């Protein structure tokens, strides 16, 4: 077999599967811009009615859903990032009794799916009167995010040359200063990758929001979309427009930071 033929086979496979990946996504974007009123089907085409996005934003309440998702995602990413950096620093560069066993507990928690925790979480948070608040969405998500973040940051801190830390310590820098002045500039790419993954996971989380929130004003974007689908079966265009709005923030982030997404997920990142 000639290598030219094999090369064509490689391009054919890549081309076909890339098309398969992108066509449904292009399809829903086009559907979102069809004439509203119940005639449009997925992939039908009668021009571009961009106005649908505005109508979905207002009538479909997607403006409010996006706001909730934004509040939850930013809070989770901020809390988890700071706490994970601190914990990863301790695990990666310090030695203390029980650090090994504590780390394996984190690692174990990393593999626990939300499905296993959701039942007690609901009853516990209800008893604390926290259901139907943003806290019910933020705190459990932060918990699982910290398990991942700690693992991630520990792995980074272990790659830091010891001499660097030792030199700073000899100069009299405290562990706090070493972390923020010496190590953080180096850690920036790793931290950014972590933040991007945490943001995506939080934004896309569905089960937690479904269980914890009944107040329409608190619904996150994926939850809002599922309710919108329930009450809007007739007109595909608004539903498609809503779906695009829900997916857009993460997709935009992906376009700009795709290296971080791919790098992060290729490293086998799993989170419960």
């Amino acid at each position: 077999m000639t290598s030219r033929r094999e090369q064509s086979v490689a391009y054919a496979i890549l081309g076909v599967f890339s098309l398969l990946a992108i066509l449904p996504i292009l399809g829903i974007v086009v559907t979102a811009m069809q004439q509203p009123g119940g005639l449009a089907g997925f992939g039908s085409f009668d021009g571009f009615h961009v106005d649908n996005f505005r109508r979905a934003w207002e009538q479909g309440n997607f403006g409010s859903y996006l706001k909730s998702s934004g509040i939850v995602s930013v809070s989770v990413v901020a809390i988890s990032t700071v706490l994970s950096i601190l914990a990863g620093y301790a695990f990666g560069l310090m030695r203390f009794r029980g650090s090994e066993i504590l780390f394996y507990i984190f690692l174990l928690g990393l593999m626990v799916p939300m499905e296993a925790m959701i039942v007690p979480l609901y009853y516990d948070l209800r008893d604390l009167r926290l259901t139907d608040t943003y806290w019910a969405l933020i705190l459990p998500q932060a918990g699982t995010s910290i398990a991942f973040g700690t693992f991630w940051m520990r792995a980074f801190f272990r790659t830091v040359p010891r001499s660097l830390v030792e030199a700073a310590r000899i100069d009299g820098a405290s562990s706090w200063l070493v972390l923020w002045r010496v190590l953080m500039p180096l850690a920036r790419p790793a931290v950014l990758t972590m933040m991007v993954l945490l943001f995506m996971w939080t934004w896309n989380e569905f089960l937690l929001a479904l269980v914890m929130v009944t107040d329409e004003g608190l619904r996150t974007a994926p939850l809002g979309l599922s309710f919108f689908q329930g009450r809007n079966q007739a007109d595909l265009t608004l539903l498609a427009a809503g779906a695009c709005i829900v997916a857009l923030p993460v997709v935009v982030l992906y376009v700009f930071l795709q290296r971080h997404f791919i790098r992060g997920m290729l490293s086998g990142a799993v989170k419960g």
Partner: protein
Amino acid sequence: MSARSFVTSPAAALAARRGRGDERPPGEPRRIGYLYLLPALLVFGAFVLAPLVHAFWLSLFDWDGITAGHWVGLHNYQDVLSDQALRTAFGHALILLIFYAGLPVAIGLMLAGVIARVQVRGLPLFRVVLFLPQVVAMVVVAVMWRMIYDPGNGPINTALRGVGLDGLAKSWLGDFGVALPAVGLIGTWVMYGLAMVLLTAGVQKIPPSLYDAARVDGAGAVREFLAVTLPALRGEIAVALTLTTIAALRNFDLVYITTKGGPGDATSVPAFQVYQRAFETGKVGSAAAIGIVLAALIFTITVAINRVAERGTGARR
């Protein structure tokens, strides 16, 4: 410094914990470590560990969520094996493994096998496109595929009718026979890009000398794939299988949006049973038990996959 260079998968870290002498933190003994750890441990403990323990406790009761529950010991776990509805759900999860993990890894390996032998330009661009389904929220994916599978004006049925195959057009998500594979194929669509990108990245790290050696020995494309590519990709295959398997077992969003487990219980899966039992039919203890079993399954499978992969790279130790 690239993030890529320092992290191996969490499961691999867990599987590899024995036999690595260098797993000690490089720092000196420092009590202050506890202080740095404390905030993370508090949040993690309160919202991951405590619920996990509480879930196990709940799973030992028969409780409807309102009235007082009563102790049933491990009965809820026996149900996983004996209760018809649960056996069906776990059976479906196994079938979905083929679609979520089996097919994507097979597709990825096919591409890897070809790419190993030739130079391909533009791979980064393909990679961005192939990876896109991974970043779209599962709820959006589900809404999208409901439209594609729509029995009335969905593109699949429209196309079938267009070429005169009206007989094949059906209610894809409402038909007892095809609903589960239809849901499974959505999973394939989401996961295959990840597998392809993972495995092609792995192939590019294989030293060309291995292929030269195989060619000198007169190996054909198939022999080369089996003797060089496949063994060298062990680690990447393990990561791909781990990620896809977890996605298959955790499959809640997709089923909830597309079929709600129906028609009948044709697409019922464990994750959906957790939700339904806990929040709709008042079997909280049973729901908690299913959640624990799911967690245990995920844990066991990930560690097993990574142990097998580790064994293959034994020479490196």
